[in-house]
């Protein structure tokens, strides 16, 4: 059924948007990353591990993760007021839960790792782009990780299962499903379904999402490698 189905931006159903990634883009942060997926643009900074104030929030045997997902007022079609919405509060939590799984929190008792996400332009898939950027920024900060986390959304749009929805597709979709995973360890760290899918559709969508995550993981790894490529030609 997907043969010949062409999407609003001319992509095939199983095709990602053009992706751009960079790490170490901010001077003051301990780790940072910038990710573009299509028109969606996300900037992430990581601070820490650092001492936690107020101290009573601290955990005696591990670091805690604090995460703020926030949209710039000019990121959306209508100007978004800068005060955090309920949606942003929820996304902050699900992103935190998704990326915390990868961090060796037990190495840094009594500290916090603070993740700040600014969506500079929103054209669908902002939480997935955020997770991809968080993972790069955490690696860039030198925080010990079990794996990089890769994330993408799939959805059902006019009866067809499609990968990496843009905003126009997202608004018209019958269902959308963001997932995030640790590809090397084959573990899922985020799964949300919004809409209605049959079991068969879910399986197809899920498999497509895993394939998308694998592609994104390759790009993340290339991005990190390219930064350190010069190191290969060692040393005295």
């Amino acid at each position, binding site marked *: 059924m997907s043969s010949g189905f062409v999407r609003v931006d001319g992509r095939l159903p199983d095709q990602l948007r053009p992706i751009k990634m960079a790490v170490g883009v901010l001077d003051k942060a301990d780790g*940072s990353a910038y990710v573009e997926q299509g028109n969606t643009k996300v900037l992430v*900074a990581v601070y820490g591990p*650092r001492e936690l104030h107020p101290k009573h929030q601290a955990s005696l045997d591990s670091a805690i993760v604090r995460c703020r997902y926030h949209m*710039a007022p000019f990121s959306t079609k209508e100007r978004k007021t*800068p005060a955090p919405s309920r949606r942003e509060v929820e996304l902050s939590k699900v992103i935190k839960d998704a990326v915390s799984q990868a961090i060796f929190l037990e190495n840094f008792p009594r500290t916090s790792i603070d993740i700040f996400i*600014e969506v500079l332009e929103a054209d669908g898939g902002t939480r997935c782009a955020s997770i991809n950027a968080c993972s790069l920024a955490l690696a860039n900060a030198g925080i010990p990780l079990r794996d990089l986390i890769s994330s993408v959304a799939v959805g059902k749009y006019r009866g067809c299962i499609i990968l990496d929805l843009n905003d126009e597709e997202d608004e018209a979709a019958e269902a959308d499903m963001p997932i995030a995973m640790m590809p090397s360890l084959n573990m899922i760290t985020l799964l949300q379904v919004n809409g209605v899918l049959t079991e068969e559709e879910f399986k197809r969508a899920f498999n497509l999402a895993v394939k998308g995550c694998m592609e994104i993981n390759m790009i993340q790894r290339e991005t990190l490698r390219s930064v350190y490529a010069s190191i290969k030609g060692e040393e005295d």
Partner: protein
Amino acid sequence: MKTFRVVSQLVRARMVDLLSKNSRIDGRGLLDYREIKVEKGFIGRAAGSAQVSIGSTKVLAGVKVELGEPFPDVPDKGILTVNAELVPLASPAFEPGPPDENAVELARIVDRALRETETVDLKMLCIEPGRKVFVVFVDIYVLDYDGNFIDASSLASIIALSTARIRRFRVEDGKLKYEDGYMPLPIRHIPVTVTLAKPNDGPFIVDPNLEEELSLGNRISISIDELGRICGIQKLEGTLSVDEIFKAISIAKDVAPKLIDIVRRESGLNV
């Protein structure tokens, strides 16, 4: 974070010593800006946008234009509003939450220079007096903070405004009619802001970096437009004598044309 606010005494001593010999810790001349970089049109969803870096200080300004009601006391004018966010990714010292006093002060400094010069001709943005006007939002996002976000923000804001494009429109019997294509906002002036700092005994510098900002103790921001008019002054921390204030203004007037040239080059604005 406390460690951020405390500057090493060694650095402070070296800084003041160098200033007495007319040089600076990062090797700049007293009246030199760090390298200024501009990237415009970066946000597709904004009518206009500009990312300005001064050294590693980085600011993104976005302009959105929407319909709204005019203020009752100026029923025949559109509205300009400037908002600034010191987003927490920019510095270990910035916290999430509503704009604090520093963010509000920053927004008001930028706003004042634009407003007092009538840089945006708001009369042109009225559709139906008392009922319907265009509202121009300038949102300033400080992304990386290594000192002097005021000058970077004012530069990013005027470039975002002067490169903004809105749907071409005309007004017929108080009704808004859109036409084909896009048009610029009515921009009449180019105000820029020059921030200066000095130690108690020593010369003024422009564009203090973060260590200078935290160490020198006396700071002032002066906005100047392309006609050389003073269109806003904010004394920040510290104290300055009368003579020092006149000195600061004359330096700002000397330095401002360089910033105004950048705006002209980026926007093609001919004012």
